[in-house]
Structure formats: structure tokens, C-alpha cells
């Protein structure tokens, strides 16, 4: 059995891993894990990842979780072009810096934006107060400003002149609020230009393919009560 990637493209980190593997021609078996059906909570999947999360990687007997770790593993094992994770000490540190920062900031706020705006009310039938939603979107706004001011600044890409893992992780996160209908690039020409550069570097077709699912998030049919009950605790913990 070769490399297996357990993914659901609804999830931001899964999209980054998917794009990276495809872009670099890394051969893998896609193992679909449907989050909205609760498949990540199954005993079968727990054998792959006891943390019950996607993405997960299985390479023979070796299993790995955490998208950042998976991306770094693929980078090293398949000797991808240097720009993804540069050898240069300082350039690499910039990528590491972004990948560390984003967990509790952009990742968190993009997730909350999607769930508060769309998934909780539409899919789970749980209304979210306008104040709550406004606060979440305000936090996202602050984070987007930080992304521009602290990381992007006047560079072409987040860590320097070339696309890196940092850009891939960031751009896939941003598609979460986009999928929720948030106009995050409005009034942010710098960020919009960066996003276009990243999409061009990745390839428009691959980018579109990876984001088909998230762009249909608003059309999710309501969950049946059993599924809803199963998913709620995990969702609440995830968006806390």
C-alpha cells in the first residue's frame, strides 16, 4: 500500500495538503472521510487517527496527523522545489513563523466565520445571534489586517518573493470565509493581488478543483437529528 491521504475538502488544512500533493505530482490514494456524515468519528477512522481529525496521512505503517507536519513530511520525502520550504535559514524561518502563528489566529477565525455564518444555522439548525456573528467577523477582520501588515507587507508572497507552504496554508484558510459568503477581499487590494498570485502559482484548475466543496457550503442540506447530535460536541469544541 502506497501513500494514503485521508481528506475531506470541506476542511481547510485538507485543501492545503491536497493541493500540495497534486501540484508536486506526489502519488497518493485519496481516502475520503466525510465530516458532515460524521465519518471521522467512526471506529474505523479512529484506527488511522485516534484524534479523529482530518487530514491524516498513512505511509505504510507510519501515520501522521496535523497538516503542517504532513506538508513538511511530503516536502522532505518527495524533494519538492526549494521555494516551498527554502533551505535559506531566514527564508525558512519566515515560513515556520507563519505556520506557527496561524493555528490560533487565521485558522481559528476563518473556521468560526464559516460556522457562525453558515454551518451552524444552515446545516445544524442552530441560530447564531447577530452580535455573535458580528464579533466573529470583526475578529476575522483584525486577523486579516495582521496577515497583511505583519506577514505579507510589501512582498509578493508571505515569506518572500516566491510561493511557499505559508501561502498555501493561508490561502486555503481564506476560502473558508469566502465559502461562507464573506467579501474578505473587498477593500483589501493588496491581499486580493496576493491571492491571485498564489492561485496563479498553484494553477487555477487545481485551485478550483480543491475548492469546489467549500464553495458549495451554503447549500448544505440540514443535518438529520442523529447526525446533528453526533457532531455537535465536536463542532462546539472546534470553534471555541
Amino acid at each position, binding site marked *: 500500500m502506497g501513500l494514503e491521504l485521508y481528506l475531506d475538502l470541506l476542511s481547510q488544512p485538507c485543501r492545503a495538503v491536497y493541493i500540495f500533493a497534486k501540484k508536486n505530482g506526489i502519488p497518493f490514494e485519496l481516502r475520503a472521510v466525510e465530516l458532515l456524515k460524521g465519518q471521522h468519528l467512526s471506529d474505523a477512522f479512529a484506527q488511522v487517527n*485516534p*484524534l479523529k481529525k482530518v487530514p491524516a496521512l498513512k505511509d505504510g505503517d*507510519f501515520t*501522521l*496527523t*496535523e*497538516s*503542517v*507536519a504532513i506538508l*513538511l*513530511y511530503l516536502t*522532505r*520525502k518527495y524533494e519538492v522545489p526549494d521555494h516551498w520550504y527554502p533551505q535559506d*535559514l*531566514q527564508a*525558512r*524561518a519566515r515560513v*515556520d*513563523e507563519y*505556520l*506557527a*502563528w496561524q*493555528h*490560533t489566529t487565521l485558522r*481559528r477565525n476563518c473556521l468560526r466565520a464559516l460556522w457562525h455564518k453558515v454551518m*451552524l444555522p444552515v446545516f445544524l439548525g*442552530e441560530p*447564531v*445571534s447577530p*452580535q*455573535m456573528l*458580528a*464579533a*466573529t467577523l470583526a*475578529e476575522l477582520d483584525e486577523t486579516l489586517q495582521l496577515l497583511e501588515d*505583519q506577514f505579507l507587507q510589501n512582498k509578493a508572497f508571505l515569506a518572500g518573493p516566491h510561493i511557499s507552504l505559508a501561502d498555501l496554508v493561508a490561502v486555503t484558510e481564506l476560502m473558508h470565509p469566502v465559502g461562507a459568503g464573506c467579501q474578505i477581499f473587498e477593500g483589501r487590494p493588496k491581499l486580493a493581488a496576493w491571492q491571485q498570485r498564489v492561485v496563479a502559482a498553484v494553477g487555477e484548475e487545481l485551485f478550483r478543483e480543491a475548492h469546489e466543496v467549500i464553495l458549495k457550503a451554503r447549500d448544505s442540506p440540514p443535518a438529520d437529528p442523529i447526525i446533528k447530535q453526533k457532531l455537535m460536541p465536536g463542532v*462546539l*469544541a472546534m*470553534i*471555541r
Partner: protein
Amino acid sequence: MGAAEPGVGTGWEVGALILVPLLPLPCPVTWGEPRCPSRPQFPLPEKTERKAFRSLGVPGLSSLGSHSLRPSLPLSGHHHSKEYIEINPVRKLPSLKDGKFILSESVAILFYLCRKYSAPSHWYPPDLHTRARVDEFMAWQHTAIQLPMNKILWIKLLIPMITGEEVPAEKTEQMLEEVKKSLQLFEEKFLQDRMFITGDQISLADLVALVEMMQPMASNHNVFLNSAKLADWRMRVELSIGSGLFWEAHERLVKLAEWDCSTLDPMVARPWVWGTERSGRDPEANIP
């Protein structure tokens, strides 16, 4: 490493390699050593970085002495001053400045130091799978360990100290449950039956894990009490680092309860203490 260069602003001393103490707070704060006689010098814990440097054998640092490490006053609001922002636009702790290169995020700093100073390989093993395990932990810990450990500190010590009120028992219970689950996962997935996370030797993962689990000690909460396995691992990590260095790094943390919180800048406490106001969250709602 180069000579010291003057910094901007009044009375700043900037060494060639400036490191900042690891703060017990995840909030963005500043660093530096202002010569402001009117402000008390609040001592801060210096943990991961100082330990990392000594353990990694970073050359020349011990000879730079106290100039290499800048204790800072993150709780007193100096991070709003222009001088701070010019020296460190990121306004974060810990921060590293190597010539003109400024780096934040402790994980990134640790990797940088390992590479630049060719630290012994056990810190970040070159084997593909072993290194992946360290990466996996370093990614997971941001939300699974660091955040909950800081929550304990805020809920048990800092919020009561600042507001004069205890946090509702329900919130505390919920938070402690979260911590329990995280520590269980840590033992089951990352530690298992090994001496250290990667096997027989200490790595960056153990270092980061331990300093974060030590945070609640400042609020008299010892997460190692409930698990012999965790307590044993803790001791192994301490001995591996060297007890002297370990406790030197934690000296200030364990004295946090003695801090005069009247110097606290509200901006720092805001997300923790006044979270409900700012976010407009209805505390009664079942959506957190």
C-alpha cells in the same frame, strides 16, 4: 555575533542577539528594557529560550551575559509605545533579533537556533519519521496544550487577581476537563511508553511540552499530580536539561502570585477578562 548596536528611543540597549523571556500570556506583548524609573521592573519568566540556548550550546551567549536576554514588562503596556514598535514591529514575546533579522513565534525561533548553531541532532532528529513526530507535536500543541494551560493560569490566578472575583465554577470545571483530555491524548499519542516523545532522548517537543505544562504552577495547579507517567517524564526532561537551568528558567513564573497587578495594562487582559463584553457573547447562550 557582532557588536552591540544602539537601539532607537531613549535608554535602549540592544545586543547583537536579543532574546526575550517567554511570557505566561499568549497575548501579543512587547519586549525590551526601558529605563523608566516610574515603572516597576516586573520580573518575567524566562523559559524556553534561555533553556534552549544553554542546552543547545549556542556559542557566545553565556559570555554576553544578561545583555543577551531582555526581561520585559509585557503586562505594563509598554508595547504601545513607538519605541517598542520600531524595534520589534511584531510586538511579541518571545522575539529574536539577529542583526536586522527579527523573528517571532517560539517554535520558529527554536528551529532557527537549531539550524544556525547546529544543535545536537536529538533536539530535532533528521530521521524522516522522527522529525515528523516532532513537527506533529509542535503543530498540535498550540491549541491542545498551550491554550488550555494558559487558561488555567488566567482562570485560577490572574482573573481573580485582577477583577477580585472568582471565575464561575462551571467554567473552571469545563476548562479542567479540557486540560485533562489534552493531557490524556499527550500521554496516549505522543509519549506512549517512551522515555521522551521521540524515544530515548530529549527533543524540542519535550522542551516545549514541559514549559507549557509548567505554566499552571504559577496558579498553584500542578498537572503532574494525577499521572505518575507524566510526572516521571517531567523529571526526565528536567534532568536532561539540568535542574539548575530548569528551575532558573521557572523562577519568575513560580513567583507570579506575588505580582502587583495594579500595573496591568487593560489591553493585555482584555481578551481574557472582558471576553464576553468584547465579543458580545451572551454568557447564557449555549454557543460558546
